[in-house]
C-alpha cells in the first residue's frame, strides 16, 4: 500500500517532551514504511500546529495523518477538523496517545520513549488501512425528557418550556419539589424554602409546554441522540388526576394514620394522602400497603366522600413510550444513613437526630409546628451539631458533601433564634465558599455559637462527671487546643452528607451513562462539560452529579436546559460513522450475529438469506463483528485489517 503518511509528534509544552525523547520518536517514525514526513512541534493543537498539518497535506500530498500527542478524548476532533480543512477525509487520521498513557505515567525516559515509539508505530501501521468515511446526519426531535422534579429538574423544565419546547417531566414521587420542599429556611439568606419553591412548582403544573408525569419512572431508554424513545411506567395512584380537584376531603375522612415519609416518620399521614399541602400535582395517592380496601377489602370511605368520583381502585400500572431528542437527568441524591456510624448512637440514643429531621422539627408545618424539642417535649438547653457525618470519612464517603457546613450553621442560627440554647458545632473545616456564605459564618460567630474544630469521635451516654449525668456527651479532639473535650448536651444533630441515590446504578444503566468512583453520574469533563455525559444528547444536572447546594443546582438545571436547546436548535446531528456493515457477498446467513445486537440493529433478509445492519440503530460496539465467523461484518474505522495491523505493530516494535 503506497500511502504518504505525515507523523506529528507533539511536545505538549513539557508534558510529553519531559519524559519522551520526541526527537528520537520522530526519527523512528520517519524511517517507518510509507511515512513521508515526521515532525515535532511544541503544541500540535495550537493554530500554528494545525497549520503545519494542513500545509503538509497540500504541499506534500499526504494521504494519511498521525498525530502523537494527548488522548483522543481530548483532541481527536480538533485534529480531524484540521485534516478535513487540509483537504483529506477526516477519518484518514489516527491519534497516538503518548501523554495520558505514556509520558504522564512513566518514570523512566528511556522506557517511555520506547513505549511512545511502539504507540506511534502502531498508529502509523493502522492509519494506512483506514478509509474515508462520511458522517450521517439525522434530525433532532425537539421534545425533551427531564427526569426528576426537584429544584434542578423544575428549573430545567421551566427554562425549556419557556423557550417553547415540549417537556416531559417525570417524577418518581407523588409530588414534585424534592428535598427542597422539606427544608425550613435556606442559607445564607434565611428565606423560607417553600416561599421560593412553591411558585415554581405551580408554574410547572400550569405550563402549557410541560407534561408532568408524577409517581412514574423511566424503565427503558433507547435510540440515539436526537431520536430517543423513553418508556415510562406510571404507577397507579388510585385517584383519577383528571377528575380530582384536590379538595382533600378523602384525606380528612380516611381512618388510617401511618408515619409520614415526608416528615421522616416524625409526623403522621393518612393512607390516602398528599405528602404536603402544596403538593404538585395536587392529587392524593393511595398507599396500598396500609389502605384498608387493599389490605382487608373494606372501608371505601374515600370513595364515599369524594364528590367527583375520582377514587379508582382498579387503576393499573401503565406503560407509555415517549419520543424525545434529548434527556436531562436531575435525579438528585440520597442522604447518608446516620445509623451506619454506630459511635454517634443514631437510632440507639434518643435525641440524636439527623439534619433532615431537624428541618422537619423546625418547619412551621412540620410535626411539631416549628418547635425544636426533645423526645420528652422539652426545649433543649444545649445542642451539638456534628459536621461531616458520612462525608470526608474513608470508612464511608471520602468526598465533601459541600452543603453541610452551611446548613449546619443555618440550623445553629435557628436553634439560637427559636430556643436560645447553647450551640456547639463540631467541624473539620468550615467550608463557606459561596456568595454571602463567609459573612453568614461571621454572623454565627457573633451569635456566640461555639465552634470546636475537631470531628466528633463519639456520642456517649456514659457520664464520667455529675455534670454529664443524663446528658449526651460529645467527645472530640479539639485540634486547635490539642486536647480531648467532652461536651454534655441535650440534643445532637448529625449533619448527614449526600450519597448517590440507591437506584443510581440502575438509572446509569438505563441511560447508558457512567458513574464516577463515588457513584454519582459522571460528567463528560469536570470543568469544560460539567452537565454533558459521554452519551450524546443526555445531560445531567444537580446533585445526581455530585453534592450541590440550591444555587448551584439551579444553575446546572438551567445549564443543562441550555445544552439541550443548543442541540435542538441545530435541527440535526451528525452520527459517528463507526457502524457495522455486512458484506452480502460474504454473508452466508448463519444468523450467528442476529441475537447479539442489544439495539436490534441487525435484521435478516429472508429472501436474500443474509443479515443486514440498520445503521441508524447501530451504535458501533463491534460485538457482531467479533462474532461473525465468515468475516462478513466489518466495523467502519475499526476493521479487522486496521486492528490486526495495529496489534502486529504494537508487538513487533514494543520493547
Amino acid at each position, binding site marked *: 500500500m503506497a500511502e504518504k503518511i505525515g507523523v506529528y509528534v507533539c511536545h505538549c509544552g513539557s508534558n510529553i517532551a519531559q519524559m519522551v525523547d520526541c526527537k528520537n520518536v520522530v526519527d523512528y517514525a520517519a524511517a517507518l514504511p510509507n511515512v513521508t514526513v515526521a515532525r515535532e512541534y511544541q503544541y500540535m493543537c495550537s493554530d500554528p500546529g494545525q497549520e503545519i498539518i494542513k500545509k503538509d497535506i497540500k504541499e506534500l500530498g499526504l494521504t494519511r495523518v498521525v498525530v502523537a500527542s494527548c488522548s483522543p478524548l481530548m483532541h481527536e476532533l480538533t485534529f480531524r477538523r484540521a485534516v478535513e480543512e487540509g483537504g483529506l477525509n477526516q477519518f484518514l487520521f489516527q491519534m497516538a496517545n503518548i501523554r495520558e498513557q505514556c509520558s504522564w505515567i512513566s518514570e523512566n525516559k528511556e522506557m517511555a520513549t520506547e513505549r511512545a515509539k511502539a504507540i506511534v508505530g502502531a498508529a502509523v501501521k493502522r492509519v494506512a488501512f483506514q478509509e474515508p468515511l462520511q458522517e450521517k446526519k439525522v434530525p433532532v426531535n425537539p421534545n425533551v425528557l427531564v427526569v426528576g422534579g426537584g429544584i434542578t429538574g423544575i428549573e430545567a423544565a421551566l427554562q425549556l418550556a419557556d423557550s417553547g419546547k415540549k417537556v416531559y417531566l417525570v417524577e418518581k414521587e407523588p409530588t414534585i419539589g424534592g428535598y427542597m420542599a422539606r427544608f425550613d429556611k435556606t442559607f445564607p439568606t434565611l428565606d423560607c424554602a417553600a416561599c421560593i419553591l412553591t411558585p415554581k412548582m405551580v408554574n410547572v403544573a400550569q405550563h402549557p409546554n410541560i407534561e408532568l408525569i408524577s409517581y412514574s419512572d423511566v424503565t427503558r431508554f433507547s435510540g440515539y441522540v436526537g431520536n430517543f424513545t423513553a418508556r415510562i411506567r406510571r404507577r397507579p395512584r388510585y385517584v383519577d388526576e383528571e377528575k380530582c380537584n384536590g379538595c382533600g376531603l378523602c384525606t380528612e375522612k380516611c381512618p388510617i394514620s401511618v408515619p409520614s415519609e415526608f416528615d421522616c416518620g416524625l409526623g403522621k399521614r393518612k393512607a390516602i394522602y398528599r405528602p404536603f399541602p402544596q403538593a404538585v400535582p395536587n392529587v392524593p395517592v393511595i398507599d396500598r400497603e396500609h389502605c384498608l380496601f387493599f389490605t382487608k377489602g373494606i372501608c371505601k370511605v374515600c370513595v364515599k366522600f369524594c364528590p367527583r368520583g375520582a377514587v379508582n381502585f382498579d387503576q393499573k400500572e401503565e406503560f407509555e413510550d415517549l419520543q424525545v431528542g434529548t434527556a436531562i437527568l436531575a435525579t438528585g441524591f440520597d442522604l447518608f444513613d446516620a445509623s451506619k456510624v454506630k459511635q454517634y448512637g443514631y437510632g440507639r440514643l434518643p435525641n440524636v437526630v439527623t439534619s433532615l429531621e431537624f428541618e422537619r422539627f423546625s418547619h412551621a408545618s412540620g410535626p411539631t409546628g416549628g418547635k425544636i424539642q426533645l423526645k420528652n417535649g422539652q426545649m433543649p438547653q444545649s445542642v451539638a451539631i456534628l459536621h461531616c457525618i458520612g462525608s470526608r470519612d474513608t470508612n464511608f464517603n471520602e468526598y465533601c458533601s459541600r452543603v453541610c457546613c452551611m446548613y449546619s450553621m443555618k440550623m445553629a442560627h435557628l436553634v439560637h433564634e427559636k430556643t436560645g440554647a447553647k450551640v456547639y458545632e463540631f467541624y473539620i473545616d468550615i467550608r463557606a465558599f459561596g456568595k454571602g456564605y463567609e459573612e453568614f459564618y461571621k454572623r454565627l460567630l457573633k451569635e456566640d455559637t461555639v465552634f470546636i474544630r475537631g470531628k466528633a469521635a*463519639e456520642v*456517649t*451516654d*456514659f457520664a464520667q462527671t455529675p455534670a454529664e449525668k443524663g446528658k449526651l456527651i460529645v467527645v472530640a479532639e479539639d485540634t486547635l487546643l490539642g486536647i480531648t473535650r467532652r461536651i454534655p448536651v441535650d440534643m445532637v444533630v448529625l449533619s448527614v452528607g449526600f450519597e448517590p441515590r440507591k437506584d443510581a446504578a440502575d438509572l446509569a444503566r438505563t441511560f447508558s451513562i457512567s458513574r464516577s468512583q463515588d457513584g454519582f453520574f459522571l460528567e463528560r469533563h469536570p470543568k469544560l462539560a460539567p452537565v454533558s455525559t459521554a452519551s450524546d444528547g443526555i445531560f445531567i444536572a444537580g446533585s445526581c452529579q455530585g453534592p450541590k447546594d440550591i444555587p448551584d443546582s439551579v444553575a446546572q438545571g438551567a445549564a443543562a436546559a441550555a445544552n439541550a436547546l443548543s442541540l435542538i436548535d441545530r435541527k440535526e446531528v451528525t452520527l459517528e460513522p463507526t457502524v457495522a456493515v455486512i458484506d452480502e457477498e460474504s454473508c452466508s446467513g448463519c444468523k450467528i450475529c442476529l441475537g447479539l445486537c442489544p439495539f436490534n440493529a441487525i435484521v435478516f433478509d429472508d429472501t436474500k438469506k443474509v443479515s443486514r445492519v440498520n445503521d441508524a440503530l447501530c451504535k458501533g460496539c463491534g460485538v457482531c463483528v467479533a462474532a461473525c465467523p465468515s468475516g462478513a461484518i466489518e466495523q467502519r474505522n475499526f476493521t479487522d485489517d486496521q486492528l490486526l495491523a495495529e496489534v502486529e505493530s504494537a508487538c513487533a516494535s514494543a520493547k
Partner: protein
Amino acid sequence: MESRMEFTYYPGCSLEGMNKAYDQSARLVSKSLGIDLKELNDWNCCGASAYMSIRELRAHLLSARNLAIAEREKKDLAVVCPACYTNLTKTNHYMGEDAKLRRTVGSALKAANLQYMGTVKVRHLLDVIVSEIGESEVRAKVTKPLSGLKTAPYYGCQFTRPLGDYDDKEFPTMLDTLLKWLGAEPVNFPLKAKCCGGILMTTNESVALSLVRSLLDCATQNGGEAIATICPLCHMTLEAYQGNVNKAFSTSFKVPMFYFTQLMGLAFGFSKKELGINQELISSKALLERRLEAR
C-alpha cells in the same frame, strides 16, 4: 458431634501461657459445635506488639510463614487473639495487593521450602461461631442458659480495627448477639471497643489505670456483674489490675472476667474445671453460685 467445619488453628503465644483457659475453652466449645480446630504445625510468633512498626518486612515474614503452613493444609486459619488476627490478616491483605511484597516474601519463604499463594482466609473464632454456625445451632447446644447473667460485652481495640470487617468497626455487636443466644443479658456498654490500657501499663501506668477504671465504672454502672472478653491482653489487664485500680482510686471493684468461650462452655454444660474457671484471679464463684447454680 461430627465436624462440619475444618480450620487450622493458631493459638498464639499468650494462649500458651497466661491465657491457657481461653485456649482450653475455645477448643472445647469449638469441638462441641462441630468446628474442627487443627493446631497449626510448628507455628511461630505472629509479629504482634511493636514488631510490625519497627521491622515491617520481617513481621510480614513471620505471619506469612504461618499462612504458608496453613495453606499447605488447604484450610482456613482460625484465631482467637485479635492481635494475631490483625497481624495475620494484614500480611494476607498486603500480600494480595502489593506484588513487590509478594515477591520478596515469596523468595524468603522459598528459602524455607515454603510458598504462599494467598488462598488462606484468616477467621476470628467469634466470627465463625456467629456468622457460620449461627443462632439455631448455638441455641441448640445451650443446656444451662446463663439466665439473666448481666454481662458487659467487651471487644477491645483490635477485634474490628483496622481489618475485621465482619462487624461495625466502632460499635461492634457480635458478642452482644452471642451472649443473648447463651441466655445472658448483655448490658449497655458504651465503652465496649475502647482501649483497655494494656500496652500502656508498663510505660504510663496512671493513664492505663484510669482507662481500666472507666471500663469497670461503665460496666458496673450499667448493671454489669461480669465482663466478657475476646482479647487475652484485655482480659489480663482488666483482671490483674483491678486491685491497683482500687488502690489508686479508692474503689472496690471485684468484677469477674470471662472469655466468651468460657461463657459458651458454661451454657453448653461443661464443668468449670474443663473451662479453666478456677484459675482466675478474681473469683467468679460467688457470682456463678448466685446466678446459675442456685436454681
